[in-house]
C-alpha cells in the first residue's frame, strides 16, 4: 500500500519503549482484570493502551476513493453542484452528492440493489478501509464495527411514503425494513463478516467522531483487537428539508470561517478508519496513532452552540490532555467549520481560548465535501490521517473576509511538504454534543 508511512520492522517493541519515555499519557501500560464464573479473577497479559490507525476508506462528493479525493484537494475542486441524484423539489439548493447513482453504488457494493444509499456508501468505504489495512489474520482477531449515521434508511422510507400517503394499503414494505439507523450497520457488518461487536452511534454531527472515540476505548480496555470505526450518511429529503427549515443552508457554495458566511451545504458520503491495538500494530503497517479524544456538552441549546463555545473548548482541551499534548504541538486543525453563523463563531471563540496567541494552520474541508452530518467525523478523520501521511494541509475554499474579533484566518492554499506531527479534528453536533480527536505521527 503506497501511503503507509512505516515498514513493519521499524515498529518494534523497542521503538515503542523509546517513545514512551517521552512521557505521553497514552503509552501507559494497563492491565485488564476480569472476574470469571468461578468467582476468581483472571488477569490479562500486561497490554499497552495505544490505539493505531491501520487502514482508511472514504467516499464523498470529491472522490470515490482516496486517490480521487487527494486529487480533488490538490486541484481545489469542490464537490458541490446542482442536485442530480436526490429526488427533491428544492433543486435550487446546492448539495455535495457522491457522483454515482444508487445502481452504480450497488455494483461497487457487492451488487446489492434495492438497499439504502446510506448502507451502500458505508459498505464501499468500510470495505476499502479493511482492504487498505490488509490484515492477514483478521479472522483470528476480536473485531468490531462501530458505525455512525443519522438518517438510517430514510431515503427508502421516503420512497415508501410516496405511495403510502396516497393509500395506506400501498407501498412496498421492503423499503422500510432498514429504516432504523442500527440496521444499516448490521447490514454492512454481515457483509464484512464482522461479528464480535457491532454498534451504531447517532449523536448528530459528532456521530462518527464518537464512533472512533468508542472504538478506541474498546481497544484500550483490551476488549477488541481491531475496530472498523467511522460513519455514513446519504442525502435525503428529510435532512435537506430539515436544515432548510432551520434556515441554515447557504443558497451559494458555503464559506466556512468567512465573516460573510451564510450557512452550510449538505453533503453525503462515508469515512472509516481501521483502528488496531498495539499488539496488532506490531505485526502490520500503520499510519499513525489516535492519541487524544474527548467528548463534552454545551447544555445550551438544541440546535446551537453557546456563544463562548464551551462544549467545543472542553472537547479540544480534553483531547489535548488525554494525548499529553500542549496546544503548540498541533500542526493542523481540521475544523468542524460548517459555514453557519453560529457554529463558526462558537468554534473560533473556542479555538482562541485554547490556542491564542499561536495558531496552527486550520481549514474546513466541508468547503469541498459539504457537511456530511453523521459521516463527517469519519470522513475528516481519514483526511486528518492523510494530512500526517503526506505532510499536507487542505485549503479552506472561498474564504475572503476574516471574522470580526479574531486575529487568525483559515489556510486557503494547498500546502505540501509540511512536517505534520499532530492533527486535531473537530466534530460538533446539535444537542451541544462536541467531540475532538487528535491523530499523532509515530
Amino acid at each position, binding site marked *: 500500500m503506497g501511503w503507509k508511512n512505516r515498514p513493519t520492522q521499524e515498529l518494534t517493541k523497542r521503538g515503542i519503549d523509546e517513545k514512551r519515555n517521552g512521557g505521553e499519557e497514552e503509552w501507559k501500560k494497563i492491565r485488564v482484570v476480569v472476574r470469571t464464573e468461578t468467582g476468581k479473577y483472571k488477569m490479562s497479559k500486561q497490554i499497552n493502551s495505544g490505539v493505531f490507525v491501520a487502514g482508511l476508506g472514504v467516499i464523498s462528493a470529491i472522490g470515490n476513493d482516496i486517490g480521487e479525493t487527494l486529487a480533488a484537494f490538490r486541484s481545489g475542486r469542490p464537490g458541490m453542484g446542482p442536485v442530480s441524484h436526490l429526488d427533491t423539489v428544492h433543486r435550487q439548493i446546492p448539495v455535495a452528492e457522491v457522483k454515482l447513482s444508487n445502481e452504480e453504488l450497488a455494483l461497487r457494493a457487492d451488487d446489492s440493489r434495492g438497499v439504502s444509499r446510506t448502507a451502500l456508501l458505508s459498505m464501499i468505504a468500510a470495505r476499502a478501509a479493511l482492504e487498505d489495512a490488509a490484515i492477514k489474520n483478521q479472522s483470528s482477531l476480536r473485531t468490531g464495527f462501530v458505525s455512525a449515521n443519522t438518517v438510517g434508511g430514510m431515503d427508502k422510507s421516503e420512497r415508501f411514503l410516496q405511495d403510502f400517503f396516497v393509500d395506506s394499503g400501498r407501498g412496498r414494505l421492503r423499503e422500510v425494513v432498514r429504516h432504523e439507523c442500527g440496521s444499516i450497520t448490521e447490514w454492512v457488518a454481515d457483509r464484512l463478516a464482522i461479528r464480535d461487536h457491532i454498534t451504531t452511534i447517532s449523536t448528530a454531527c459528532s456521530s462518527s467522531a464518537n464512533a472512533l472515540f468508542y472504538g478506541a476505548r474498546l481497544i484500550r480496555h483490551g476488549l477488541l483487537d481491531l475496530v472498523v470505526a467511522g460513519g455514513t450518511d446519504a442525502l435525503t429529503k428529510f435532512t435537506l428539508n*430539515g436544515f432548510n*427549515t432551520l434556515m441554515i443552508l447557504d443558497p451559494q457554495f458555503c464559506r466556512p470561517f468567512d465573516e460573510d458566511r451564510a450557512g452550510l451545504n449538505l453533503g453525503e458520503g462515508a469515512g472509516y478508519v481501521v483502528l488496531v491495538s498495539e499488539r496488532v500494530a506490531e505485526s502490520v503497517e500503520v499510519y499513525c496513532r489516535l492519541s487524544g479524544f474527548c467528548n463534552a456538552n454545551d447544555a445550551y441549546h438544541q440546535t446551537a452552540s453557546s456563544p463562548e463555545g464551551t462544549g467545543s473548548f472542553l472537547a479540544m482541551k480534553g483531547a489535548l490532555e488525554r494525548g499529553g499534548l500542549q496546544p503548540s504541538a498541533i500542526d493542523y486543525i481540521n475544523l468542524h467549520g460548517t459555514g453557519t453563523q453560529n457554529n463558526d463563531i462558537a468554534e473560533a471563540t473556542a479555538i482562541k481560548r485554547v490556542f491564542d496567541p499561536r495558531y496552527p494552520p486550520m481549514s474546513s474541508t466541508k468547503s469541498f465535501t459539504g457537511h456530511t452530518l453523521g459521516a463527517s467525523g469519519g470522513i475528516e478523520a481519514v483526511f486528518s490521517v492523510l494530512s500526517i501521511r503526506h505532510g499536507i494541509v487542505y485549503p479552506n475554499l472561498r474564504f475572503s473576509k476574516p471574522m470580526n474579533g479574531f486575529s487568525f484566518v483559515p489556510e486557503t492554499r494547498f500546502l505540501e511538504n509540511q512536517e505534520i506531527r499532530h492533527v486535531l479534528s473537530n466534530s460538533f453536533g446539535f444537542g451541544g454534543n462536541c467531540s475532538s480527536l487528535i491523530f499523532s505521527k509515530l
Partner: protein
Amino acid sequence: MNGITASCIIADHAVRKNGKLVFEDRHADLPGFLLSVYQHFGLNYPRFFKMDNLSKLGWLAVEILLKDSFRKADHEAGQVGIVLMNAHSSLDTDLKYFESAKDIPSPSLFVYTLPNIMIGEICIRHQFKGEGVFFISEEFDAGHFVRYTGGLLDADVLQVCIGGWVDLLDSEYKAALFLIEKEVLPVEGGQSRPFDVLAKENIEKIFRGEKGRTKEE
C-alpha cells in the same frame, strides 16, 4: 437505599405536589392553563415562552417537583439524569409543523419535533449533564421505569434521577414526575417514600393519584 423524595402530577387542570393539591384552574384551555401554572408559581424564565406545549408541561412539572425538594448544590451536574416516557412522542408539535410546512415551514416548531428536546429544555434550565433517555410506550410502564432508573442509580451512573411520564396531544395531557435519589436520608415531614421491591406498585399508585407508601408505614 434508593428513594422517591418527591412527586409532581399535572393532570385534569390541577397540580399535585407529593399528593397534595397545590394549584387548580378549571376554566382555562391547555395553553392558558400552562401559563397560569407558570404565573401562579412565580416562575421567571423567558425561554418558557418559546417552548411547545409538551416541553412547557414537562418543564413546569420539573420546576414544581424540585421546588423545596432538591438542593442543586449537593449534586454534581453529571450525576443528575432524566428518564422520561410518553405515548405520543412529539406528535402534537409534529402535526402543527406539518401544517406550517404547507406554507412556510416554521423553524421554531421544527426544533420541537423530537420528544427528547424536552429533556434538553430541562437540562439547559438546571445545567444537568447526566444520562438522559426517552421511551415511547403506549402506557406508563412502571416496571420498566423502576428497573431502568434503579439500574442507573445502582451502577453509580447517577446519584439523582428525575423521571416519569409526560404526555400531550391536543387537549389531552398528563405529567407524573418522580424525584429519585440514591441513599436517601430521612426527610423532614416524612415525604420520603421507599423505593424498594414494592416500588413498581408504589409508583403506579402515585401515578394514579393515590397515596403512595410513606417511610413511616
